[in-house]
């Protein structure tokens, strides 16, 4: 084995590295595994967090890129210490670590250590985690879940664990989440990024960082070179500089979900990484590049744009619709309905197809990319210039437009430009969804057109959630009210009503509606014939007898109609912005 020493060429592309401050001194780690003392059990005066089920005393993670065998690896190390305050907090002593595997590359959990500390009669008692007690479950072909639980946990215990994940995936460093459903006194993440791997970082959330800094530190690692023929293995010693990115948060309260949020991950403080480029030899190679670069790759991807270039599976029907509907809007609506009744959505939000489009047509089942790329293909076959629209669903989180990362998207819808008319957004994953409406889950900021132009398109809609009621009532001299109600649901309210009817039955839907009007002795509830252009309309006959008939003044209960005053905001305060998705 020969050992060669290489000094990496220091590139001027690393503009953020200021050379004179070479080798800044890094702060000591905020936690040392195994160092809990009896005094740590004394609650701090400032905190009332003992009401919480448990709290993170310190959660510390580091990611480093290290040389390995013919490749670089990411070494992620996490050390966490929690105090379990109440029995309801016992579940925080069980830890689940998701691992990823693909194409023979894996993430491996190693060096698991753990202790539970209890204070018994003033004495510190340590119980060790038995490392055999690591359970490994293959969730599916790409996901493995490792889980372990700490021993001897009681109210008041301090638990501590540490593990390492060795990952072959240098494209993604481990994310870090600073906030949790329990309070966190200190959470810190450091990433050591050698100058030859350049990452983009994305931070999310609202609460402030206590520390957010970048240092330049020395870097060295050993890399085992690929074997050439029968030659002995050679190793390279690499010396250079690395950026140490450091984020920390202090005294973070427990996160609570509120009504009308997108997804908690949009609100929780977190940091994410994506490999932007490499520079091993002085020449920077862009790996994610610009949005345009992403589109170029997508356009060649068999599971994206290239999929739509196959002969259209619904070509015959598309041709027929082209003949039948000279008006492009009417034709688009007909193509949409065709695809909607050809394929069922399997509730998997994806940007890549799971199968060729002809197979989607054959199976009649598909994910969002299968269905909406089929829609794009069929619209084009019908002579309509459709474009795939990449977006992130509400439960997937908001898009950061300045970060060209494909992983920000999880869903494909379709976009159609019609001459002389406003652009139209379409989605075929739900039956009876009219032209121009995206499902509620898609109403999340902006989407991006997957074409060379690559414009951002607001996913806002002009269509409201409309619930319109008309009551015609006759008042008798005994104070009785008799008449009928006409309840119309339009826009997104109609989408929801049609969905409910489909998923139960018209009879069941009417039964539920009548039940809400129970105080009004509802009779003969019925739905008017449905058409996508009109609101869903339900009518019922009503009769109301006054409660205090003997009183000399009549009190008409018109402000007490069912759902007249929906009350969605019962909490006394609101921490985070409200996001309805659609106008109400």
């Amino acid at each position, binding site marked *: 084995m020969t050992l060669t020493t290489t000094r990496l060429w220091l590139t001027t592309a690393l503009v953020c590295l200021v050379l004179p401050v070479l080798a800044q001194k890094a702060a000591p780690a905020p936690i040392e595994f195994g160092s809990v003392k009896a005094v740590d059990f004394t609650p701090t005066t400032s905190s009332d967090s003992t009401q919480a089920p448990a709290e993170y005393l310190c959660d510390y993670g580091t990611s480093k890129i290290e040389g390995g065998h013919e490749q670089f690896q990411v070494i992620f190390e996490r050390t966490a210490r929690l105090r379990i305050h109440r029995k309801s907090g*016992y579940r925080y002593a069980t830890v689940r670590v998701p691992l990823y595997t693909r194409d023979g590359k894996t993430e491996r959990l190693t060096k698991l250590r753990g202790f539970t500390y209890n204070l018994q009669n003033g004495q510190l008692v340590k119980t060790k985690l038995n490392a055999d007690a690591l359970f490994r479950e293959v*969730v*599916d072909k790409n996901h493995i879940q490792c*889980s372990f*639980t700490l021993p001897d946990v009681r109210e008041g215990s301090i638990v501590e664990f540490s593990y390492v994940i060795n990952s072959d995936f240098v494209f993604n460093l481990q994310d870090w989440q600073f906030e949790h459903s329990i309070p966190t006194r200190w959470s810190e993440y450091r990433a050591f990024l050698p100058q030859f791997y350049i990452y983009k970082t994305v931070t999310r959330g609202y609460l402030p960082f206590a520390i957010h800094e970048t240092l330049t530190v020395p870097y060295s690692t050993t890399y085992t070179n690929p074997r050439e023929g029968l030659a002995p293995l050679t190793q390279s010693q690499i010396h250079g500089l690395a950026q140490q990115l450091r984020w920390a948060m202090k005294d973070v309260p427990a996160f609570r979900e509120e009504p009308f949020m997108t997804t908690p991950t949009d609100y929780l403080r977190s940091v994410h990484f994506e490999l932007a480029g490499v520079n091993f030899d002085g020449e920077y190679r862009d790996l994610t590049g610009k949005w345009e670069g992403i589109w170029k790759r997508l356009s060649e991807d068999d599971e994206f744009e290239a999929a739509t270039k196959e002969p259209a599976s619904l070509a015959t029907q598309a041709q027929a619709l082209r003949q039948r509907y000279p008006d492009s809007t009417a034709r688009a609506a007909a193509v949409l309905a065709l695809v909607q009744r050809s394929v069922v959505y399997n509730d998997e939000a994806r940007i890549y197809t799971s199968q060729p489009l002809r197979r989607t047509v054959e199976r*009649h089942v598909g994910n969002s990319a299968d269905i909406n790329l089929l829609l794009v293909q069929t619209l084009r076959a019908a002579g309509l210039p459709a474009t795939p629209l990449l977006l992130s669903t509400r439960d997937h989180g908001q898009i950061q437009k300045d970060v060209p990362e494909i992983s920000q998207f999880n869903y494909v819808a379709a976009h159609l430009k019609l001459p002389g008319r406003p652009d139209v957004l379409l989605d075929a994953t739900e039956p009876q969804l009219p032209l121009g409406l995206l499902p509620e889950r898609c109403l999340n900021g902006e989407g991006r057109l997957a074409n060379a132009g690559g414009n951002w398109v607001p996913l806002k809609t002009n269509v409201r959630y409309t619930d319109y009621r008309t009551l015609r009532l006759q008042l008798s001299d005994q104070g009785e009210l008799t008449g009928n109600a006409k309840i119309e649901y339009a826009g997104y309210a109609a989408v929801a009503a049609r969905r409910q009817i489909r998923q139960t039955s018209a009879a069941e839907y009417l039964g539920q509606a009548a039940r809400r009007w129970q105080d009004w002795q509802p009779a003969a509830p019925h739905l008017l014939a449905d058409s996508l252009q009109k609101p869903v309309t339900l009518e019922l006959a009503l009769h109301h007898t006054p409660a205090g008939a003997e009183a000399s*003044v009549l009190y008409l209960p018109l402000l007490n109609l069912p759902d007249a005053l929906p009350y969605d905001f019962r909490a006394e305060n609101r921490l985070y912005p409200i996001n309805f998705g659609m106008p109400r």
Partner: protein
Amino acid sequence: MRPSYLTAAAWLLMQGTAASVAVAGAAPRYAVADMPAALRENAHAVVRLDEQTLVVKSVSRTVETNRRAVTILDEAGADWAMQVVYYDQLNTVSYLRGTVYNAAGQALRQLRPSDVRDYGLSDGFSLASDGRGRAADLRQATYPYTVEYEYEVVSNNPLFYSSWRPQPQEQLAVEKSSFRVVTPANLPLRYQERHLPVGSAAIASTEGTQLVYQWQVHDLVAVDEELDAPPVSELTPAVLTAPTEFEVQGHHGKLTSWQTLGEWTYQLNAGRDELPPAIKARIASLVQGETDERARIRKVYEFLQANTRYISIQLGIGGWQTFPASSVAANGYGDCKALTNYCKALLQAANITSYCALVRADEPDIRTEFPSSQFNHVVLCVPLAKAAKPDTVWLECTSQTTAFNYMGSFTGNRHALLLTPSGGKLVRTPSYGAAENRRERRADVYVDAQGNATASIRTVRTGLEQDRYNFLFHSLDPAEQKKRIADVLPLANFSIAKFSLAPGAPAAVPSMVESLALTLPNFAPPSGKRVFVSANLLSRWASLPATVGERQADIWLDNAFAYSDTIRIHVPAGMKPESLPSPVKLTTTFGSYSSQIQTLADGTLQYVRQLRMPVAHFARTDYPAYVEFRRKISAADKAQVVFVKNES
């Protein structure tokens, strides 16, 4: 050869050729037009053909095969187009095949291996579980269509034989369903038939050395789910089966009675209750000097609750065999068997004998007349040796917060199989009636001249009524508890000025005390000279919805409770009640209700409402009377008090 095997052979031949060719040549099957029209009525899906077979290979192995074709009529029935076949360390899936047909009965497509997803049933709750599933999805976008699935599961766990439930759900009709059991003559089948239509009882025959049992039903129309009725699965046909003898991973047992099932389970877990000397010594000193038996048990139980926690682990034979007590002692955690076994060992160290008791938790009670493995949980039963009259303490060992000797809705009021050295013994867990399940509420409402109000309310809940609140108290911090309580308060506009939720003093049944101070803006807005107030602040009970068609099922009222509300309404000087609702008193076999309002000496109005419901079953013909009873309560609950300003 039976016809079904013929088609299976033809099927295998077809596999060799291209799917589309085979499809084109095949005769239509399951055409929707062939289906009797009555089966479509009120149904989201129709089982066209269901052939379930259980072949007992030996005392330690069974093979279950299924072929089921279901016509999906609409989106609400689409779940039947998906199939998940479960397996684990003791069960393997031999195959899963599927075909989808259009309405005309032409095969559209066959399931391919790449369409089947294999996944871990990681429940986000268990620390470890070997449960896995193979899932297929043959849903189509146009209705109706028919899916056919065939699968086979080989089981090395013959403690469970498959049951046959041809119509497990509401709004599902059945054209034809059959069940066939083939078993060696020396391992005869035990079975119980339930609600079988006339003429569909078992046909038993002998084929060589095999016993063959067959059942068949056809043309079962869809049934509806009704309110206050038994679950549909209790009303539709079923055949429960069980072995006479079985062997799981070398553990041989007989299942001819509750006694033998209990014996097998007892033996499987015997000798696993040895404690480390240190723990034994701790228990000895814990109960030293305590002579009262019940107090000794309580001390041991409190020790268990303070020092252990529940961790679910579902692996192979571990579903029936406990981890040793020493493992719980070392780790401080275990699953239900391990914690119950540990508690039994702790009690033993305090010289108290106890028995593990199998129950079916959180589901309808077991079928006591059919001994078989119907359990999913275990609790500890401690008969008091020194009590004057027979008495028993019951302990839930998986909860760190359940009150001593309390079996709530999860485990109470049902049968349990006591595991004793001489075998299994069926006993009952405690049940709680209206006297135990109480909700007592006292409130003072102060209305001001502008119609704004404040209220202070104290609610005491006991027995099963407190279960939910006890759970809230132990699982959430006070801010979250308050939010949950606010979410269910039946008031339109309020804010909570003060809130507390806490367990009441220890008693025979546990209790929870909730105190609320509310501000109620615009509670009773004046209307001219008058003010209207709903006396029943928080306890309105809705009437039942109008029935569509004739009531089919009997009435099952399964929760006994007694509610009492005393509401005092304080109005400003210068207002006096103009009219008071008349008292209402209803005494029926369904339950009793009364409400009345009186004026107290100081002018305060006092509203008293009482509702008491027993556990009872009634014939379906009583339904109109029950609806009337509920309507009257609902009407009385809406009573309003009208105040009028004194003429000045």
